[in-house]
């Protein structure tokens, strides 16, 4: 921890029209890292990015770049570059001139510009596209031009604001891999904003989960998934069954009317806690082989696995299993100690993790409305 972080945000607070967007926000980012800011729309992730880029001035707090305070440095003097949500390519310039834009502004020689543009287009697999009109490129190609344009300025930090949001799923996956490759090749620090948890987990060195203008958890993708700090993180990253429970003693938790051995300790005796169980960790057994048993209320085929909703004494569990179960049949749920993850109670307790009202369409609806909101947020 002794080295100076390349970007540091200290006690940042921002509000728009009296509404707090970021509250006492602290973040340190080490050089060369791939950091992802992950959260639902309106959580303040884009605002965080824009503070680093210099487009939003925090009401309170300081921004440091390599240990130097840059609060009052205007965007054009910062050694960071941004890839904007809808790429913001200059429509009146062709691909070559777009990529050359930053270098021309900085007064580089045309010879140097030519070779750099060539290298950049090569890196993003756009050889031979130099003299195309940017308006006639596909979404993926525009995306690549935006990357080339930002990298041509040799930034120390690259800010990416939901850069893959407009691409279809297949292209998205390809671009994820490509971005990761470029990041490793160049060693540039990437700060990546997304609301897609899968994207965050597969690309990042460090994930920052945010909600309501606050950091909920910082950690490696594995940490975030396996050791969520509260119900919000557990629910936002992947699927979770979250139950009310009590920590009877170290390594002994009580929930769903039963006592279970677990691997967590350090809680007060009989402290109320949230218990997280991932759907894929639950083993399905015969009803009499486990203290937990219930009736299957719905089964959905998902390709890799079946998604099974089981009613256990009024609480609906989600199980992901490769074995089909008959709707209405009685099954047992078997938990191993390391399947059980205990979290402290938080403001999010009781809000997530019950699949009573769960349906795919609802999830889609929520996603769609979040997308719309994200666009509105973008206007700020």
């Amino acid at each position, binding site marked *: 921890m002794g080295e100076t972080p390349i970007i540091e945000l200290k006690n940042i607070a921002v509000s728009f029209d009296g509404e707090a967007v970021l509250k006492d926000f602290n973040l340190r980012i080490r050089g060369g890292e791939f950091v992802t800011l992950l959260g639902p729309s309106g959580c303040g992730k884009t605002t965080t990015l824009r503070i680093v*880029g*210099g*487009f939003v001035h925090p009401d309170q707090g300081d921004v440091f770049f390599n240990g130097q305070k840059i609060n009052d440095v*205007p*965007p*054009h003097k910062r050694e*960071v*570059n*941004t890839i*904007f*949500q*809808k790429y*913001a390519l*200059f*429509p*009146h310039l062709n691909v070559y001139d777009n990529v050359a*834009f*930053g270098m021309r*502004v*900085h007064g580089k020689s045309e010879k140097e510009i030519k070779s750099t543009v060539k290298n950049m287009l090569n890196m993003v697999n756009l050889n031979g596209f130099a*003299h*195309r*009109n940017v308006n*006639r490129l596909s979404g993926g190609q525009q995306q690549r031009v935006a990357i080339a*344009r*930002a990298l041509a*300025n040799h930034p120390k930090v690259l800010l990416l604001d939901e850069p893959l949001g407009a691409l279809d799923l297949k292209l998205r996956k390809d671009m994820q891999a490509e971005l990761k490759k470029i990041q490793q090749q160049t060693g540039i620090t990437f700060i990546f904003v997304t609301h897609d948890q899968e994207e965050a987990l597969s690309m990042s060195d460090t994930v920052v989960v945010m909600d309501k203008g606050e950091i909920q958890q910082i950690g490696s993708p594995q940490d975030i998934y396996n050791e969520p700090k509260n119900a919000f993180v557990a629910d936002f990253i992947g699927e979770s069954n979250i139950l009310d429970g009590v920590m009877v003693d170290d390594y002994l938790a009580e929930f769903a009317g039963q006592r279970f051995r677990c691997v967590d300790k350090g809680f007060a005796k009989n402290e109320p806690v949230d218990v997280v169980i991932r759907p894929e960790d639950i083993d399905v057994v015969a009803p009499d082989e486990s203290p937990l048993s219930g009736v299957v209320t719905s089964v959905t085929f998902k390709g890799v696995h079946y998604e099974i909703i089981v009613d256990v004494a009024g609480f609906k569990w989600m199980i992901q299993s490769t074995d089909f179960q008959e709707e209405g049949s009685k099954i047992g749920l078997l938990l191993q100690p390391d399947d059980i993850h205990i979290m402290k109670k938080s403001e999010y307790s009781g809000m997530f993790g019950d699949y009573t009202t769960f349906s795919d369409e609802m999830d889609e609806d929520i996603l769609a409305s979040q997308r719309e909101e994200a666009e509105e947020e973008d*206007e700020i």
Partner: protein
Amino acid sequence: MKVASKVYTFLVFLFLYAPIFVLIIFSFNDSDTMSRSVFSGFSLRWYARLFEDRMIMDALKNTLIIAVVAAAVATVLGTVAAIGLNGIRNKWVRRMMMNVTNLPMVNPEIVTGVSLMLLFVFVAQSLGGLSLGMLSLILAHITFCTPYVVLSVLPKLRQMDPHLYEAAQDLGCDPRRAFFKVVLPEIMPGIVTGMIMAFTLSIDDFIISYFTSGTTQTLPIYIYSMTRKRVSPEINALSTLLFVAVLFLLVIVNLRQARDKRAQERKEGLES
């Protein structure tokens, strides 16, 4: 198109164009009695008379000077105003400013005309002995042209990705340079459209000029005084020339657009 549609379209266009063609035909009328209804042979005499008429040529000169100055000033003012309006975040303030901008366009021209006249007369008198003329005409034309420029630039600003301006700064332009290198080229089509509109509105304006001109003659004002004399085939000649000039300009503009479009398509066809 069905036959009925064709006939209907033809009739409406006949209604629109018949008077204009009558004007054109009678501009070539060779008649001493200066009759407006009997065609008695082909002649270019009215055209000759037109160009000998010092008053008309002076009026034309005034009209062009006013149009060029007013269009130029209104374009700058309107563009700056549009950028300012676009930047207003508060919804209510923005709506109010938009209404204030639109008001001169929905206001009856005669009301705009007399109110400007009263204002100019008041200012001229309090400055002592000045009278209305070129200056008041130019100011009046700037006033009624500016909202049209705002109206044609504003949609371009709205369509523009707001991140373009930020992207330019992000790549190292200071705000001023970012504006000139990125924002201005983006909204240029709107500015040009606005300028053309301002120019043509200014050339064409009669009502507002009528009230603010004092004794200065512009072409429409002169035309008006000619129509009061009831019989003056020179007007027909003038109308014909103006009509042909406008037609010519429109055809050129359209041909250029078509050619640009074709060139663009060909270029892209070659590369892909």
